[in-house]
């Protein structure tokens, strides 16, 4: 979750629930996962509600019986494939992974149009992506692309000297500092950079946009299930969804407009690699193999 968004939302949440005292812990999804794992190891889980951008982590938590099922009335507009069948969690916002280029280095017509194209010799040593070992969204991107194109795709990226490092902001930095002209990164980070005057431009790849349906869930251990449910209702309400739009992410609810300067959610969905619970389940099962295979190809 983004710090500035939490800061903005916090006040509004407090206004809506004057009797609740909510403590926010904000960090990247991998750091949150590491913290929760350590807490579980120590049998001392602290959180009541969890909101990260790693959909597969929720399957893990559900399987371990750590979540409390709840179906918020505000989720009825959300497509069924973005919700857990047993209501243990539901997609609350949809970050999407696309491509970006630095317009001071490339003309719009010269920029790549598809992910597939990045294996072309033309882009040798010119592409940077986040590492799936460090970033949850990059992991989803790797899982999606390897499902569609197989591991050969990444072998070719490796031969093409594609750099895989850090998280999304590392990619942004490498593009802005002109070390690399093209990157694979989150649309929301491109839009945010643009609003700050950065010369980054998004490319909605023609062979697919990568969806990262990001859930919210309640932990079973919570001592305040009713309050937690109220918070979930708020997060799915129009007000709650507006904060996500403000942070440049799509709402899973088709009634809510897209972020400023972004294509519509329908446009994105038409281009998107398909997402469904079965795909999520498979990726979850193979997630260690996916990481290992990627590391073997890209890092050795």
């Amino acid at each position, binding site marked *: 979750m983004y710090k500035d968004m939490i800061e903005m939302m916090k006040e509004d949440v407090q206004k809506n629930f004057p009797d609740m005292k909510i403590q926010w812990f904000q960090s990247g999804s991998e750091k949150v996962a590491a913290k929760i794992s350590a807490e579980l190891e120590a049998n001392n889980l602290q959180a009541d509600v969890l909101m990260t951008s790693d959909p597969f982590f929720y399957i893990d938590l559900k399987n371990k019986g750590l979540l409390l099922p709840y179906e918020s009335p505000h989720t009825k507009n959300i497509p069924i494939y973005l919700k857990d069948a047993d209501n243990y969690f539901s997609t609350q916002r949809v970050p999407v992974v696309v491509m970006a280029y630095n317009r001071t280095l490339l003309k719009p017509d010269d920029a790549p149009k598809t992910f597939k194209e990045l294996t072309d010799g033309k882009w040798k040593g010119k592409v940077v992506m986040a590492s799936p*070992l460090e970033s949850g969204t990059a992991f989803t991107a790797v899982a999606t692309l390897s499902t569609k194109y197989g591991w050969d795709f990444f072998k070719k990226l490796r031969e093409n000297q594609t750099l895989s490092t850090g998280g999304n902001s590392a990619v942004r930095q490498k593009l802005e500092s*002109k070390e690399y002209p093209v990157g694979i990164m989150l649309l929301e980070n491109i839009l945010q950079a643009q609003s700050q005057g950065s010369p980054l431009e998004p490319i909605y790849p023609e062979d697919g946009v990568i969806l990262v349906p990001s859930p919210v869930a309640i932990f079973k251990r919570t001592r305040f299930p009713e309050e937690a449910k109220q918070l979930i209702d708020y997060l799915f309400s129009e007000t709650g969804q507006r904060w996500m739009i403000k942070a440049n992410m799509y709402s899973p609810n088709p009634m809510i407009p897209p972020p400023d300067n972004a294509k519509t959610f329908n446009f994105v969905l038409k281009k998107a690699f398909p997402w469904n619970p079965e795909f999520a389940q498979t990726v979850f099962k193979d997630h260690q193999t996916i990481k290992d295979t990627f590391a073997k190809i890209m890092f050795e």
Partner: protein
Amino acid sequence: MLRSCLNRLKTEHWILGGSALLLLYFAAFPLLLLIFKSISPEHIQNYALIVSKKSNWISLLNTLSLCITTTALTIIIGLPLAWLLYKTDIPQKNLWKSLFSIPYIIPPYVGAIAWLKLLNPTSGSLNLFFMKYLHLNSAPFQIYSLGGAAMVLGFFFYSFIFLACYNALQKMDPSLEEAALMCGSNRWQAFKDITLPLILPALMSGIILVFIATATAFGVPALLMMPQRLFVLTTRIYTDVLNYSGGILKASSLSVILMIFGLTGLWASSLFLKNKRFTTLSGKYARGEPLSLQKWKWPCIIFLIGVWGIMVFLPLITIVISSFLKIYGEPLSFSNFSFQKYRYVLFELATTQKSFLNSFLFATLASLISVILGALVAYVKVKTHIKSRHWITFLATLPYATPGTVVAIGLIIAFSGSHGLNLYNTFWILIVAYSVKYISFAIQNTAAALEQIDSTLEESGRMCGASWLKVFATILVPILKPTLIASFFLIFMPTFCELTMSILLVGPKTETVGTLLFNLQSYDDPQSAAVLATLIICVILTANFMVKKITRGAYGV
């Protein structure tokens, strides 16, 4: 029977024994627990897996060469600097000392970001500069390499050697060197035969700190070596095994190997120093006549300016400039200049102020605890003959020789209530983490200083009828005062912006400067992170300046 035994225990036994136990409980127990878990039947096969992988051996080799290169660089920079700034009549010594101590207080990964901006092969400003003016076809510097990482680490860690040697020179009796000179040896001989052996314990403890700090460093090798697919043990731990499905215990197996690595170095150095006990302080404390540089004065000054300019000023100014940029990759110009990020970090981000207060409080408490406990443990190590004393200091170094992430995980498992104490999500767990991680600084420093104090001082106190506590407080503490206060700052500075452990240990109310910096760098934008880094540098430099002003230059780095 029991009563008579207890009666025979004197205050010093209670105090020394108690501090040793405290240290063992907080520093050694969490890690031993983790080791124990890693060798339990269901996890032991991880070791076989690790040993069988060639890539792990390569990262071990890389770790070794990174450590050796970095350490060599830090000695080459740190030792002559300490000598030049303490022993000669170079003007503005104190100013230079402060200027050269700056790297000690800045997290190396901030420096790595700056150096990346200066020296990356495609758009690094220094590389572009040299390519333009020397008409080169390709970038002269490759920052993405083992050498690049060693350079950046060396430019920061030389301060360990520098400060350790400077302190040791301060405590050295100058008449020894003067005697050698009077007997006809030249300056070099006097340095080689008298000064160097006398400051060797301090130099060695500095070397150990550098060696271990390099072996456990994560940020710099991650930023500068991973893009070239060069791995060291810490980055291997990170990429290979640390993930949410039971990765913690796998990671701990690899960490145990890293621990062994650090501890072997420690053991080797203790062998090396075994029969070298020096007594150079006999109560007197004098500076002696500084060496006149004469015609070498200006070359030395120019040399200092050049070295400081490249090592310290260049990366710092890069960060400061970044903090004012509207667009990160564009050069600083009127249209690309903005205070917007300052407004955001200072006024719009509610956590900035709180994190500064938190970090200040945590670092102060942790440094105080470490200095006091460290002094007592150092006393046990140097001045007593208790059989297990080496074990205690050995175990106290465990957390320092272990990557921060693993220490943090050990602490979470040990102090979350299932083993008695529950500190999780309180600020105490951060204080424990900082204290145990850096207490070896205090122990090493105080032990090195104690080595130089002749026991006759203590014995005379005891003979006059003073209790042990009184001797400790009125004879040892005053002599040790410079070391103790120096240790305080040595621990305060790195804990103030500590990152690796904090990131796992902070709770909703205990965000620190380090975690805020990391979050800004990873999830916001580099300019905001640069703003915070600039603020941190300003706050620390001001605090340091004020301490020096109030104590008339006696303390602070």
